[in-house]
């Protein structure tokens, strides 16, 4: 029975993994082999032509790759910074309408981001008209809503709430300020949660599509997640190599941060 279950699970896992393996092995096939129509996983001839083309003639790929890196890293950095401060405030500080504001935060996370795209668009349009700052067709239009999401705040608040109040009160009795408490006591404990937030935010933003389509007009500003489709239709010869390279950052980040991700999700009680 156990063996049967193992086989079933293996088959199901293979169904999940097959597209990734197929993409990876296809990236080492020649264009002729891909276009031959025979669907096979192992290349007849190990060929680096796709990677060679991307490195040499299709160097534009790395421009879009950098666009994605830029957007993702800025959003992660902003979300972590804002999340730490806001979460600490919601978790350990008393101020007027704290719970009400937090409920609004929770309500925001309940809304799918596609719903918030239209209000975001209208707000940016208003700002552009009022203070004459160009937001549309710039990465700012994606970065700003990305930074100020409530997910990070809620995730970190859950972590900070698990820190015993006694530790913080003792520190305050010793004369430590909130800032000192945050940086000296809370942050070291919060490290797994921050890594969790980084990984989740990275995966979320590395694959962003809708925001880029709505806010960006210039093809050169598009992130790789959006441009992959264009590569598929117009540069199929290098598509598989491009797709593999696209997966690599997420994969590395997941492999390296898997431990923190599991730990963080467990502690946060989100699992």
């Amino acid at each position: 029975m156990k063996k049967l279950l193992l086989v079933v699970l293996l088959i199901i896992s293979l169904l999940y993994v097959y597209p990734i393996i197929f993409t990876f092995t296809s990236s080492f096939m020649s264009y002729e082999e891909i276009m031959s129509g025979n669907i096979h996983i192992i290349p007849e001839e190990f060929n680096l032509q796709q990677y060679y083309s991307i490195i040499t003639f299709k160097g534009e790929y790395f421009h879009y790759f950098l666009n994605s890196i830029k957007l993702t890293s800025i959003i992660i950095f902003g979300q972590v910074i804002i999340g730490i401060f806001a979460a600490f405030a919601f978790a350990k500080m008393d101020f007027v309408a704290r719970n009400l504001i937090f409920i609004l935060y929770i309500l925001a996370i309940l809304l799918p981001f596609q719903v918030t795209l239209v209000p975001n668009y209208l707000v940016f349009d208003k700002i552009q008209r009022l203070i004459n700052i160009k937001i549309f067709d710039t990465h700012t239009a994606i970065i700003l809503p990305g930074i100020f999401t409530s997910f990070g705040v809620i995730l970190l608040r859950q972590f900070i709430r698990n820190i015993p109040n006694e530790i913080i009160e003792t520190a305050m009795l010793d004369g430590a300020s909130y800032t000192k408490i945050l940086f000296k006591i809370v942050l070291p404990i919060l490290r797994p949660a921050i890594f969790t937030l980084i990984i989740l935010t990275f995966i979320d933003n590395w694959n962003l599509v809708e925001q880029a389509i709505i806010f960006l007009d210039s093809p050169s500003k598009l992130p790789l997640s959006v441009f992959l489709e264009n590569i598929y239709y117009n540069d199929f010869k290098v598509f598989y190599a491009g797709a593999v390279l696209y997966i690599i950052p997420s994969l590395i980040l997941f492999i390296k941060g898997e431990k923190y991700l599991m730990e963080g999700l467990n502690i946060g009680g989100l699992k």
Partner: protein
Amino acid sequence: MESKVLKISKNTIITFFTLVFILGFFSKSVVNLFIPKVQVTTPVKSTFSRTLNIKGKIVPKEKVKIRLAGSVIVEDYFVKIGEKVEKGDPLLKINKNYGVKSSYKDIDELKIDLKKEKFKLERLQNTTYNIDKMNVQLLEEKMKNMKEEIKKLEKLYKAGAITANKLHVKKQNLKSLEINLKKEKLMLQEKRKENQLEIQETLGNIENLETEISEAKNAKNFYYEISSDGICYSDVDGIVLNTNDTEVILPQDTVLIELGLVKNFNSVKFVTKIPEKYYNFISDADMIKINSQNDKMPDQVNITEVSKVINNKMIKIEGEFLNDNNSFPIINKEIKGIIEKKYVGEKTVPKIAVIPHDKFEAGKKGHVYIVLEEKGALGTEYIVKRVNITIKDVGDDVVSIDGIDMYDNPKIVINPSFKIRDGVKVRIWE
């Protein structure tokens, strides 16, 4: 063991992708390092020219060769090669002791002989042989009478009036008369034959004499005359082209001095020789441009004659100078010139784009490399394709080609190297 293999595989994959990312982020530098750079051009319709550098010399159109009517020994030449001479200038002096040993007779003597022969002919033609004819007639008359007399005697003999002996004597006389007549006739015939032979001989003599007189007259025109002091003077204005040796016996017909009848550029021509392979190029060319530092020299030569030099694999070109400004040409001096031919090509490319580079000839096959574009979302790949072409016309720097009509504005590689082959990816060097 298994974990070691896994570790090596993991490291290999990580290294590979790290390299891809590193190289990819420096894409342009990588391209510069590894991909052959090509310069390209698009074939254009253009007018181009082909020039052929030549070296030639100026030679006189007309020459005068100074010969003497016999073998001579020249003591001294009074002129040097390249020197201008005028009519009446002394040219040379012969050794008077040796004289002019001529093979030609005096024309006056020949004329007298001719006259004599003509008289002789007249005399022969007027010979009638009347006496001989009269002798024959007399003999014939006499025979006739004698025959009649014999007839009468025979009648008398039959009547018995005369004797047989008398008749027999008469018949004997008649026979001897017949023999005499035959003899006279033969003699007359022989005399006439002899006369005819003599007439023919005389006619032959007259013809020979007339030929000799004509030759002597020609020789008189052909050969220069020597004055009584042994000096030969020029009859023409010109320039000395050649002189012969002194103090040696120079046989009759030897050219002692060669003079060119040169006054200006109209009296000379430009002569050059070029290899035979340029025959097609030259055949319809009409002008030579002269490269000369001399401002007075005409700068153009009109080609008048193109001829092959047999067994020499060369072509001889002759031409006349245009725009003569009455300056005096320098004979036999080497002059450089250019023969230029214009072409109009529908598709012309630089010569360097066509392979093989060494022999450019109209009609020859070759190939060029064109760059095909493969546009994609991430950029354009350039792939080289070899295309066979035929050379139509050849210019100095460009050639007109056929065989690329199926490509619309093809980019043709103008710096082909060993790296450029069919199917090779290249980068276009702007």
